[in-house]
């Protein structure tokens, strides 16, 4: 335990110092950390899932607080919580049905690899499904027919475990943890391979002689473009440099190195160039539940320009970037201000920095936000590892990957 605690603390510090950047690596590290945390967690005999969830929540809260704008942390925590609930349910379901415990019963969850049809009482299965689903009209209406037979397994803590048949208890105890860890492994796997899955779809979207614009740097976009290039598509890429980090430079160089015709433009030339562009393809920092995108700064401008010229604005995002939160005031609340030194040389402007207006407040302010919020109506398409989606459909993906209870938890922990 202590070493896990220290790992958590170390990661928290890293997050706080922004030593970990990029949603993918953050997501992966978070998932790995949670995996080792879970594996070291000792579970009580009763209400295992509840205990595990509480423990994970506690850690997750810390991690989220360490860098509230890195939504990937919260996403992964929620995913893990969801996994725990799911595993718990499937175990319970299986136990109730007197079946072997092997299967994950979720027919709704794309994440899980194999959907073994659950042969147990359909009622129980339905109950299990509903437990993980966010509230809907349907769930309002569907009730567990035999509450006496099947304890409300999913209710908030998963206290069902205790009520399940005692014969299975020991095996289930181990089973739960084991299953959860396995599922988390799959999650990690999924995070690290999301590029490839997204890139596979490149050919469907890029054609010959297209002109594609992107801004800044994104590994996903790189793989995507290169995948199309490998399929013998010839096209040109405009790369806006993405001030103030100028990651577009390195990005362009790498693209050129891979044989793509690449043109570097300044960010200010985006509007000028967009009229000759066929498609804008960008990466995202996070995708919100309403289909809005938290993206590197500057992309709102690009999206507006694209909309003006009816150029499709395509966002590539791994599923780990899906965030179940609805953005309110995202420009401010989900943003982060970086150091002014990226914009102004302190040495040059040191004299200005001292000048006060007489009221004591300095005359010079420098604003250097890290992110932009792109509202859903500016996005034409999301390409995730599960395929292409409209912004209006993102809510459904989120319903698949997260459970409603965790949203609330997250809200609490985030605040």
């Amino acid at each position, binding site marked *: 335990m202590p070493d896990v605690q220290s790992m958590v603390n170390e990661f928290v510090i890293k997050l706080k110092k922004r030593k970990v950047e990029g949603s993918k690596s953050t997501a992966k590290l978070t998932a790995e950390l949670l995996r080792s945390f879970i594996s070291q967690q000792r579970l009580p005999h009763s209400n295992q899932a509840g205990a595990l969830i509480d423990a994970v929540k506690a850690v997750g809260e810390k991690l989220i607080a360490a860098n509230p704008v890195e939504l990937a942390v919260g996403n992964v925590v929620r995913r893990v919580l969801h996994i725990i609930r799911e595993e718990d349910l499937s175990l319970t379901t299986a136990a109730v049905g007197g079946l072997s415990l092997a299967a994950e019963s979720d027919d709704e969850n794309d994440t899980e690899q194999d959907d073994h049809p659950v042969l147990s009482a359909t009622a129980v299965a339905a109950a299990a499904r509903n437990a993980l689903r966010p509230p809907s009209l349907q769930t309002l209406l569907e009730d567990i027919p035999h509450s006496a037979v099947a304890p409300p397994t999913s209710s908030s803590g998963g206290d069902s475990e205790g009520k399940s048949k005692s014969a299975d208890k020991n095996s289930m105890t181990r089973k739960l943890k084991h299953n959860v860890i396995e599922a988390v492994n799959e999650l990690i796997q999924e995070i690290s391979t999301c590029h490839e899955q997204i890139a596979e779809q490149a050919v469907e979207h890029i054609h010959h002689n297209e002109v594609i614009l992107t801004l800044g740097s994104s590994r996903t976009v790189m793989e995507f473009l290169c995948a199309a290039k490998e399929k013998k598509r010839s096209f*040109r890429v*405009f790369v806006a*440099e*993405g*001030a*103030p980090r*100028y990651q577009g*430079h*390195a990005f*362009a*160089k790498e*693209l*050129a*190195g891979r*044989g*793509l*015709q*690449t*043109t*570097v*433009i*300044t*960010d*200010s*030339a*985006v*509007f*000028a*160039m967009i*009229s*000759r562009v066929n498609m804008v393809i960008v990466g995202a920092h996070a995708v919100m539940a309403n289909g809005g995108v938290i993206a590197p*700064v*500057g992309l*709102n*401008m690009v999206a*507006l*320009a694209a909309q*003006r010229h009816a150029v499709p604005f395509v966002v590539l995002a791994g599923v780990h970037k899906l965030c179940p939160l609805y953005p309110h005031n995202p*420009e401010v609340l989900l*943003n982060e201000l970086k150091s*002014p030194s*990226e*914009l*102004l*040389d302190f040495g*040059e*402007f040191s004299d*200005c920095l001292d*000048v006060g*207006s007489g009221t004591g*407040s300095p*005359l*010079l*302010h*420098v*604003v*250097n*936000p890290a992110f*932009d*919020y792109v509202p859903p109506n500016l996005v034409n398409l999301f390409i995730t590892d599960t395929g292409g989606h409209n912004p209006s459909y993102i809510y459904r993906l989120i319903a698949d990957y997260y459970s409603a209870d965790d949203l609330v938890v997250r809200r609490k922990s985030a605040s």
Partner: protein
Amino acid sequence: MDPRRVPRTVSDPKVRQVGFFAPAVPPDRPQSGPPDPGSTSPPLSDISPSSNSLSPVMIPPPRHLSTDLPRNFLHGPPLSPLRDPRAADSSIPVGSYNPSEFLSPSASTEFSEDPLSPRWGRRISSTGKFATSLPSGGIDVAVAKQNAVNLRRDVPDGGANTEMQKEKRATDAKPSKEKLGKAERRAIQEAQRAAKAAAKGEGNRTSAPAGSNPTNTGKSVKPVPQKKDNSSVAASERKSGDRQADKDRKKDVPQPRMQFDDENRVEKAKKRSVVKQTEARNRVELFRHLPQYEHGTRLPELEAKFFSLSPVHPAVFKVGLRYLAGDISGGNARCIAMLQAFQEAIKDYCTPPEKALIRDLTTKINGYVSFLIECRPLSISMGNAIRFLKTRVANLSLNLSESEAKTSLISDIDRFIGEKIILADKVIVKHAVTKIRDGDVLLTYASSSAVEMILEHAHELGKQFRVVIVDSRPKLEGQKLLRRLVGKGISCTYTHINAVSYVMHEVTRVLLGASSVLSNGTVYSRVGTACVAMVAHQFRVPVLICCEAYKFHERVQLDSICFNELGDPDAVSKVSGRKEINSLDGWANSENLRPLNLTYDATPSDYVSMIISDYGMIPPTSVPVIVREYGREHLWI
């Protein structure tokens, strides 16, 4: 080209006979079509402009005096299109600069360059009139007068234009060649011409009296083809950037700019150029039509030439070098620097023996202008200023002594600077300040002198406001503005263009400068302006464009691609103050990598709430009105 030319020439002969009036040809041109042939027409145009001032243009003409006609005829040596090319060829080795050559050739070149310009329309029509009138003699006197007036105007303008383009043209322009050309043309065309002339004459007549239908005449005339011809011959000059000067005449149809993807022309232009330029490597395909040279290769070389380059006045040379080095930037600053250099040059000018001041000086100025263009493409405002100057030169009374003429020109330039720039800015400031309320947050982009004056003045008036300065690479002009404003005690927020969506929430007004405002309301300005205006529009923040009226132009443009200026690509790859960002070093060695440094972009008019000019606060839809009502005034201050 030849075939096309032929028809034109055929129609023209009468005119030519009268004077240089190749212009007669122009009427045909429209028919002949835009293609290359213009060679004949160019010479004509030079001459013809004056004569041509046919009906389309004619209507406005009342201002001009008819006296010009004779001049025009005299001046405009009708050059055959054929000649021009030849001349150009011959001249090429020499370099087009020789003043002596200028007159006729230059004129021709100009026209050629301005194929679409209204002038042509006028010219053509006028020529048509002439043709008709001469043969038939039935044209109304009044019309003729008007034409003459127009011709005058046109001529000076044409001269200016020609001068600009002259480099190439000069070579072509040789008078002797003209004769040949004419002869040829006549021979070929005479048969055709009779018919055409009749038809045209009618058309011209009708159009001329109708004067009010400038567009029609212009169209019918199709000056364009001629110009093209000319341009094709001589034209390839780089005017592409700043042709506007040529427009002086009838801007209705601005000339097409030189397209640098036309190898022929580029080749020719190169031969004439003073400055040796190396084409940048790894050009962006989309911008082949714009000139792009390797930065840094020109400056040292030019500096070395400082003492050896005779055709360019040292003051002009100095300004050119400063353009090249980037010391002077900003539309007003560049324009003022240029005009002041011209003042110097005029002061030191003395008419060579056996030459007319008007024509020789025009030629000279054309030479300077083309030199400046080589240093950096002209801005539209500079084009307008040059057009003004040439108009003044062309309209100098013949009775003036040389010194009087010089004095008059110098004071004209002073007046232009004073009224059109300095005073205009004051008026703009006065208007704009009324739109600033206490508590406002004003956003501006990069650095505009007019906006800076507005902010300072508002601050002096004690208004309480905050300024957001949005900046972008590579020029980072906003930093200088920031420093100056903070120094004045104005509270500023500084950010880069990507964050404009972030800061726009708090902004209540956006104040932007402009390099030019085009007559479709498009604001042509520092690259990035369009982005800022777009975001402001999205956030429903009013966008105020501050722009002196002398920067208005009758050209139209829809995107930022067709016409632009390419900056130094190295400026993109190097980030000042951020040495760690060096991924693009050595980009030139990579086949697939090309940095692109655009200088301007075009802001669609629907993003613009208001344009503040010296004519007051106007909506962008009224720009063509100002151009129409006051455009000529610039030339006639």
